């Protein structure tokens, strides 16, 4: 199947800094991609380019459209939830459902109403009277009722309590995601999305420093817990990262033979957040 997004030599310069530096990547359909990077790494710029909200240089093809020229057509196939509270504050639940139902050709009103029925939202409620969690519920109900091929989530759960956060991803997985859909998500709460991601993309200073599916990540990166006496030997093998736990050292290796590491101690798969921290060391230094 052809790629959902193909980017080639994508660059974006703001006045003083390079937000995207010659980035190239491909995203296949049916994937859930985590785009992870420190603040100011270019995540939002990348998403904005994909959505046609900003200008850039280079080639970018999203579902066969050029986001710069065909943004309004593209948005018929793409949904977008930015960090919370971008729904207009004056609008009522009834009004926003009416509006989207009449301007979006792929919106299924019954589905949306079914999702809303599961929440405490009432038709006459205005967005300004809702909590952050409720706003996201409303937005998610709207978006899940749209049969889009690409869903882009930019920090969707920022500022939500843990109940709303869990429910958010659970709804997405159970009622929305299937093999024809693609989801790109950026978040700082890596632990919460770790288990749902199929692909991982790390971005740093406008460059993609890691782009792999989760299986490949599991093969490439290995953590090994080593006793203090063998630590110097492990250190000689140039680990990405080292930390101490209970008198033992945990080393993170990139692309070292599994059998070689097994000989040194207990091995395990690193968590995405540990991997992230190791990769992004010195970002703010």
């Amino acid at each position: 199947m052809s790629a959902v997004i193909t980017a080639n030599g994508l660059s974006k310069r703001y006045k003083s800094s390079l937000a995207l530096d010659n980035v190239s990547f491909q995203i296949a359909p049916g994937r859930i991609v985590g785009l992870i990077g420190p603040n100011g790494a270019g995540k939002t710029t990348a998403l904005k380019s994909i959505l046609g909200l900003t200008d850039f240089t280079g080639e970018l093809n999203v579902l066969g459209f050029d986001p710069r020229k065909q943004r309004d057509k593209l948005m018929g196939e793409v949904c977008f939830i930015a960090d919370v509270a971008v729904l207009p504050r004056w609008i009522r639940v009834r009004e926003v459902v009416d509006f989207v139902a009449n301007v979006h050709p792929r919106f299924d009103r019954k589905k949306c109403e079914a999702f809303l029925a599961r929440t405490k939202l009432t038709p006459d409620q205005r967005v300004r009277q809702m909590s952050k969690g409720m706003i996201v519920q409303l937005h998610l109900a709207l978006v899940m009722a749209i049969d889009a091929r690409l869903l882009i989530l930019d920090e969707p759960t920022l500022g939500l309590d843990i109940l709303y956060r869990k429910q958010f991803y659970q709804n997405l997985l159970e009622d929305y995601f299937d093999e024809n859909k693609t989801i790109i998500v950026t978040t700082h709460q890596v632990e919460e999305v770790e288990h749902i991601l199929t692909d991982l993309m790390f971005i740093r200073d406008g460059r993609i420093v890691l782009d792999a599916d989760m299986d490949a990540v599991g093969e490439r990166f290995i953590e090994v817990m080593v006793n203090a006496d063998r630590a110097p030997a492990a250190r000689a093998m140039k680990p990405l990262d080292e930390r101490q736990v209970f008198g033992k050292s945990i080393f993170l290796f990139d692309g070292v033979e599994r059998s070689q590491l097994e000989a040194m101690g207990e091995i395990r798969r690193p968590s995405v957040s540990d991997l992230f921290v190791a990769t992004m060391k010195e970002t703010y230094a």
Partner: protein
Amino acid sequence: MKTFYWLVKREFWEHRGGFFWAPVITGSVFLLLNLMAIVAGEVWGGMHGFCMGICTNGTSMHSLANALDQQSMDKVGAGLDLVMYSSTLIIGMVLGFVVFFYCLGSLYDDRRDRSLLFWKSLPISDSATVLSKVIAATVVAPFIALICGVLAGIAMLLMFAITLSFHGVSVWHLLTLAHPLQVIVNVIGSIPLYFLWALPTVGWLMLCSAWARSKPFLWALALPVGTGIVIGWFNLLGTMNVGNGWFWREIVVRALFSIFPGGWLRLAQGMQMEQLGEDGPEHALDFLSIGHSYGVLASPDIWIGVVAGAAMLASAIWFRRWRDDA
């Protein structure tokens, strides 16, 4: 087309207060004040033995209707028509303010509160969005306001007629003297003209709204006024001789205040504002008549304004598309 209808509807939802309640409340307050004035006049007149309104030369109200000759009948009718216009005039002023601030906020407020990101996540082109706001400002808002104005005018007319009927003048007789239908046609018929006339101001305000990173109000005001002051200053120095008065009248006023209805009357040929006071109300009515208003279309000024307005709206669409600060 369906999308466009819903876009306009969205504008109405968001600005129900300005588009609907402002004219309704203004009309109600206007009627209430007039009612209070009439009651006060009646009470005061009753106490002091005077009669109000048109009986000034001591004629008894009872004989008034009979005493009116054809010419004064026309005057009474024209006066009643003017009464109808008066409510529209007040509501038109309110409309001007509503549209002014609506345009200034139209492409700025959603950038500020970031709801722009939601609107842009829907399959709607930026041109459709901007044009729907233009239609809301130049057609929907004046339509509602003028309907309110006309309704308030009819209510005023009935109020006056009923008051006079207490003095023995037949209501129906008076009403036949007035020309409510003609007034309605003149008022509602001026909407297309309002659209054309308001375009430069709407374009300028929406351009500022789409372009300014902050404080669109200051930019919208400061740029033309500042330029005017600079030109005036150069004129004072004698280094440049640009028509200062021309600049203020044709640029500053047109860019900022064309959203007040009736501004075109200044341009309409055949009669000057100054003459208004001297002649009777009939002449004032001619001045307001639709045929007279549309005479403006013969002047190039309005068309230059339309072209400038359209160009500024095109720029506003461009900024709406590419302004990247949400």
